[in-house]
């Protein structure tokens, strides 16, 4: 299982690829909407790519609870363990 930092940096790569936001900006405390300016449709694209990359399932109802990068990283950690 990937470490917390590996998940964060993997997620950062995905965010960069889909939205063009620099990967270095994707830090744990950042809010997807307010800090990284990621809209709901891009968020779905990020989630689908993360599901593939980390081999986890992130249901539609959960996506709205993933406000920050840290929320997403911990969800992926838990779902993958």
């Amino acid at each position, binding site marked *: 299982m990937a470490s917390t930092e590996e998940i964060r940096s993997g997620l950062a790569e995905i965010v960069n690829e889909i939205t063009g936001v620099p990967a270095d900006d994707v830090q744990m405390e950042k809010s997807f909407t307010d800090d990284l300016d990621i*809209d*709901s*449709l891009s968020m*779905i*694209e990020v989630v*689908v790519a993360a599901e593939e990359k980390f081999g986890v399932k992130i249901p*539609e109802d959960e*996506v709205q609870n993933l406000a920050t990068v840290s929320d997403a990283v911990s969800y992926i950690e838990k779902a993958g363990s």
Partner: protein
Amino acid sequence: MTGSITGPTTLRPSRILGLGGYRPSRVITNDEIIQNIDSSDEWIRTRSGIERRRWATDEETVVAMSVSAAGKALADAGIRPEQVDCVIVSTVTHLYQTPAAAVEIAHKLGTGHAAAFDISAACAGFCYGLSLASDMVRGGTARHVVVIGVERLSDLTDPYDRSTAFLFADGAGAVVVGPADSEDEQGIGPVVWGSEGEHQTLITQREEWRDAMFGPDGPRMPHLIMEGNPVFRWASYEMAKVARQALDAAGVSVEELDVFAPHQANMRITDAMANALMLPDRVAIARDIAQQGNTSAASIPLALERMLETGDATSGDLALVIGFGAGLVYAAQVIRMP
């Protein structure tokens, strides 16, 4: 048993012979839409790619728009109305339960007594109709079939619903399906289609007509409602898989493809599907939605018409078309451009 029934025993090749569209006269800008909803031109453009759309006037009825589009398709095909054996109309906005719009359209086109009926397959309706028409020609049931996708979605759009008010629009698109010269020139690939009724509440009407008329909040129109995010996810990823299956069924690789014309639901869905399909840069992608909005069953033929006009597509090109929408329903096939 006293007798036997005879009928055709061989398949005949089919193809699209001609294409035509009708774009309504009223251009509606995003600035007009946001007078009723808490939104902005920029929000609409970034979330949907829509810059403007067209809404029909009272005179631009489902029948009138269809007759115009189908007349153009017949002229493009070089087929006289009396040579038409069947008219198939896909629409969810012909507001009579009966008779079918197709019957009046067939009559006004001058087809004589061609068979005529409507189908209800929402935004997949054009591809559903195309599949039926192709099989009719292949099976010998009809020689020439007119397939029309037509909508006046503005009639069923809630102008105060910020998730759909900017999205839906009106128009008609038509093709003539008829015989190809040889099996090598088969111009309509096998359909890959289906329905997922377990998701029927994702895009639907707020209530049925009886409740809309006589319920406590009535009388009012039973407007369309949609859960955008799950639909986006389904359309972008699940539909890319269906599109790939349609390529496989036709024996066409992405390298051989010239045109990708998905239902014009949302530019972001088109982009996500194109990415998932890993289309080579040389494949021209339909982006009619920017000017036209989401016209449901009409969107694919309208998009193809624009691509032929602009030179993004030419006659003989191989195009992947896929429709998907309320139901949920979907259908995809590879076609050769007329």
